[in-house]
C-alpha cells in the first residue's frame, strides 16, 4: 500500500470509531435511563438504613464507587455499550497507528492527531478504571466527549498525513506532546466525574432544575465521585507537570530559552496553577467538596481553551495545528 492509501485507511478507521462511540453513547444513556426506576426504590431503602444507624452510605473512600444495592436485572444496554466502546477504542488505535505509518513519524503532531490520541487515552482510561470498579455510569459522558472530539477532528482539524518541520523533529515530540495528550485524556474522565458530582450534589440538595433528572440517583454518591475524580486528577496533574518540564527542556533546545510566556506556555501554566489550586482546595476547610469540583471544571475548560483557541486564534510559536500554512 502507498502511504496515501494507508492515510485513507486511517481516516476510514477513525470514522468507524466515531460510529462505535456514538452507538455506545446511546446505549450507555439507555442504560442510565432504564436503571432509574429500580434505583429510586433502593435509594429510599438506603435512607431508612442510615436513619436507623446502619452503615453509612460511604466512607469517603474511593473504593466506595459502588452501587449500594445492586439490582439483579441484567444490564443488556450497558453490555452492548461496553463492547462497542472496546471495539471503537481498538479501531481508533488501529487508526492512530496507520496514521503514523502513513506520515512516517509519531502520530501526534497536529490538532487532528491530537484529537485522535486524546480521545483514545480518555476512553482507554475509562476502560482501565472499569476493570477495577463499575464506572459504567461514566460511559455516556466519556464516549460522548470522545465522539465530539473525533467529529471536530474529522471535520474541522483534518489535514492529510505528512512529515513535520525541523522544530518538531525531536524525540521530545514523542514525550512532551504524548504526555500532554495523555494528561488531557485523564483530565477528561476526571472532569466527567466532577460534573456528575456537582449535578448529583445539586439534585440531593433539592435543586428545582434537577427534579426530573432521576437518573442522577443511579450514580454513586458525590463523595465517591469526588474520590474518583481526585485520583484521576492527581495522575493528570503529575502528567501535566511533566508536560511542562518536558516542554521547557524542548524549548531550551529548539528556541533557545526554556520559558518565554508564549501563549501556549502561559496557558499551560494557568492550567497547572488551577489544578494546583484544586489540590489545595480539596484540603482547605470550607473549600473541599463542591467548591473543589468547580476547580476541576475551570481547569478542564482551560485545557480545552489551550487546545482550541490558543492553537487557532492566538498565534504563538506553538502554531502547529497545520491548518494555517
Amino acid at each position, binding site marked *: 500500500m502507498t502511504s496515501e492509501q494507508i492515510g485513507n485507511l486511517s481516516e476510514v478507521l477513525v470514522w468507524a470509531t466515531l460510529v462505535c462511540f456514538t452507538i455506545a453513547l446511546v446505549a450507555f444513556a439507555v442504560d442510565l435511563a432504564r436503571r432509574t426506576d429500580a434505583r429510586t426504590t433502593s435509594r429510599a431503602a438506603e435512607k431508612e438504613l442510615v436513619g436507623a444507624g446502619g452503615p*453509612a452510605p*460511604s*466512607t*469517603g*473512600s*474511593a*473504593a*466506595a464507587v*459502588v*452501587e449500594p444495592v*445492586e439490582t439483579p436485572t441484567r444490564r443488556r444496554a450497558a453490555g452492548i455499550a461496553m463492547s462497542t466502546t472496546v471495539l471503537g477504542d481498538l479501531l481508533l488505535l488501529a487508526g492512530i497507528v496507520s496514521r503514523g505509518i502513513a506520515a512516517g513519524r509519531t502520530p501526534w503532531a497536529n490538532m487532528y492527531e491530537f484529537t485522535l490520541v486524546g480521545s483514545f487515552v480518555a476512553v482507554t482510561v475509562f476502560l482501565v478504571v472499569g476493570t477495577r*470498579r*463499575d464506572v459504567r455510569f461514566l460511559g455516556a459522558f466519556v464516549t460522548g466527549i470522545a465522539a465530539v472530539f473525533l467529529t471536530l477532528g474529522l471535520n474541522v482539524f483534518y489535514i*492529510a*498525513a*505528512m*512529515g513535520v*518541520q*525541523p*522544530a518538531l*523533529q*525531536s524525540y521530545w515530540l514523542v514525550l512532551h506532546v504524548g504526555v500532554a495528550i495523555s494528561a488531557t485524556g485523564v483530565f477528561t474522565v476526571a472532569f466527567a466525574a466532577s460534573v456528575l458530582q456537582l449535578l448529583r450534589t445539586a439534585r440531593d440538595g433539592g435543586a428545582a432544575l434537577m427534579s426530573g433528572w432521576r437518573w442522577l440517583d443511579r450514580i454513586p454518591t*458525590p*463523595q465517591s465521585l*469526588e*474520590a474518583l475524580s481526585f*485520583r484521576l486528577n492527581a495522575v493528570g*496533574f*503529575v502528567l501535566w*507537570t*511533566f508536560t511542562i*518540564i518536558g516542554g*521547557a*527542556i524542548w524549548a531550551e533546545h*529548539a*528556541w*533557545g530559552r*526554556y*520559558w*518565554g*510566556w508564549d501563549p501556549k506556555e*502561559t*496557558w499551560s*501554566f494557568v492550567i497547572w*496553577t*488551577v489544578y*494546583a*489550586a484544586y489540590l*489545595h482546595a*480539596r*484540603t*482547605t*476547610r*470550607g*473549600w*473541599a*467538596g*463542591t*467548591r473543589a469540583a468547580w476547580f476541576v471544571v475551570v481547569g478542564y475548560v482551560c485545557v480545552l481553551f489551550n487546545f482550541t483557541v*490558543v492553537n487557532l486564534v492566538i498565534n504563538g510559536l506553538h502554531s502547529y495545528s497545520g491548518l494555517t500554512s
Partner: protein
Amino acid sequence: MSERTQYKPEGIADEFVTTSASEGVSTGSTAGGGDGPRLPVLGVVGWLRWTWRQLTSMRVALLLLMLLAVAAVPGSVLPQRGPNPDKVLEYLGGHTTLGPWLDRLGFFSVYTSPWFSAIYLLLFVSLIGCILPRVAAHARNLRGRPPHTPARFGRFPAKASAFSTASPDDVVAAVGAHLRRGRVFRVDLGAEDARGERPATRTVAAERGYFRETGNLVFHIALLGLLVSIATGQLLHYRGQAIITEGRGFANAVVDYDTFDKGAWFRPQELSPFSLTLDDFSSRFASDTVAFAQARDFTAYVTVTDADGSASKQTIKVNHPLTIAGAKVYLQGNGFAPEVTVRDAKGEVAFSGRVPFIPQDNVYTSRGVIKVPDVSKGLEQIGLTGYFLPTAVINADGTARSAFPQPENPMLVLQVWSGDLGLDAGVPQNVYKLDTATMTAATGSDGKRAQVLVAPGQTVKLPDGLGTITMSKDIPRYVALDLRYDPSLAWVLTFALLALAGLGVSLFTPRRRVWVRAWALPSGDTQVELAGLARGDDAGLQGEVDRALAAVPGADPPTNSATHSATHDQEEPR
C-alpha cells in the same frame, strides 16, 4: 488523635478520617466553627502575628494561586513588549484611549509587572512561612511512633476480625512481623491490662506513609529552589544575536552582535573569546503536493576557532544547538543575503555589500532595504526597498511572486527612492526600514511607482537616471544565530525534577494506620480484631487490613467474607 506534635497550616482540613461522610466532601460552606478570621485584641505584635497566620494559611495560599492563574492570562491575549515590541506599538496605535491606560498598568509586560510579581512573591512568602514549621514538625514526626491502639474499633472505615487457635502473643508477633516486612510500616507491639469485661489484650499499632509528607515538603521546597535559580539565571545570563552570511563570521564580543541583552550581574569579560565562521548552509523543503514548500531540514556548517587558535568544524541545526565554552549557539533563522552593488549617476560605486532579506512566508518572499548614503557629491541619496524572490514567477499583470523557497530563479524586485535618508540626524535607525519622509519615489512614464527587476549577474539601470544596480551571480545565504549563556540551567532542571518527584511521592504514597487487638477467650481461642484508617481517600485500605488479617496464624476458620460483612463493604460486588 495522636499525642505527637503536629503543625497544621491554618485552615487545613487534613484529618485522618474516622467518621463516614467526612466534612471535607460534603458541602461548600464553611464547616466547623472558630475558623473565620478572629480579630485580635492585642496591639501591633498581635496584628503582625495575625497577619502572618493569615498569610500562611491554606485559604490565602489558595487565593493567591487563583490570583496567579488569572493574572497570567492577559499576557497571552495582549501583545507583550519582550517578544513583540512592534505588535505593542501597533496595538497602541489602534487603541488610543485604552492603550495608554493598559500600558500604565503594565499590561504589555505582564510577567514583569509589579502586580504579577507581587502575587508570586506573596505566594512564596506564604510558602516559606508554611513550609518552615512543617519541616520542623515533620522532622519530629519522622522519629515518632505510631499512635496507640484506640479503645474501640467500631467507627473505623476498614475492619476485620477472626478467631485464632494461636495465643494472643503469637498472633501479635505474626501480624507485627508481617507489617514490618519491607520496612513499609512502623510497628509497635503493646499490651493492655484488663478493662471492664475485656481481659488483658495484646496490641499492634502500625503506621505507614511518612514519606507522603516528605514528598510534599520536597515538592514545595523545590518550587522555592526553582524560583531562586530562575532569578539567579536572569541576573547572570547574556544573549546575543547575530546575522552572518556564508563565508563570514563573528567573534564572541559584545560589539559583534546585532543585539545583546544581559543580566544585572553580567560582566563583559565573562564572554569566552572564540570566533565562528559560517562555511555553508543547507536547507531542504518538501516538494510533494501535500506538504508543498514545508521546511524539512536546516543545517549550518560552521568552523569554531577557540581562544587558543584551534579550529574545529561543527554543525548547528534546529533542536541541536552547538555548545561552546558553556554557551549555546542556536540556529534561529535563515534567508538570502544577495550581494548588491549600486553605482550612482556618475558611475561611482556608492554601495557594495550583502543585504539580508527577511523571509515573510514559507516560500521565502523576503523583504529588505538597501540604503545608499555614500553617493558622489551633489547627488541625492538613494534608498531601495522591496523583495527578494528565490523562485520568481511573473504574473500576467506584471507583479512578481515567489513559488518555492529554494533559489531556482532568484530575482530582486525593488522600488527606488531618492532624497535624504535621514541617517545624519543622529537618531539610530532600523536597518530593515526606510524612512521615506524626506524621499521621493521614482515613477515610471505611466505615473505609477517604478520597479526594477534584477536577476543574478545582471546590471539594471535605476529610473530617473539615478545610476545602476547589480546583483552578484551567487546568492549567499545567511543564518540568524542566537548565543545564550545561562549558568543556572542545571539548577533549574534539578529543582524542576525534584518537584516532580516530590509530587509523585506525595500524591501516590498512601498514609495508613493499622491496629490489631488480640485477647484470649474463655473457650481457649483467641479473638483478633483489626482496624484501618487512612488519610484522605484510600481505595486500598481494606485490602491492607485484609492482608494483615491473612497473617493471623491459626485463623479459625479463615473467614474473609464474614469479616467483610462486619465492615461497610469497600469492595464492589461483582
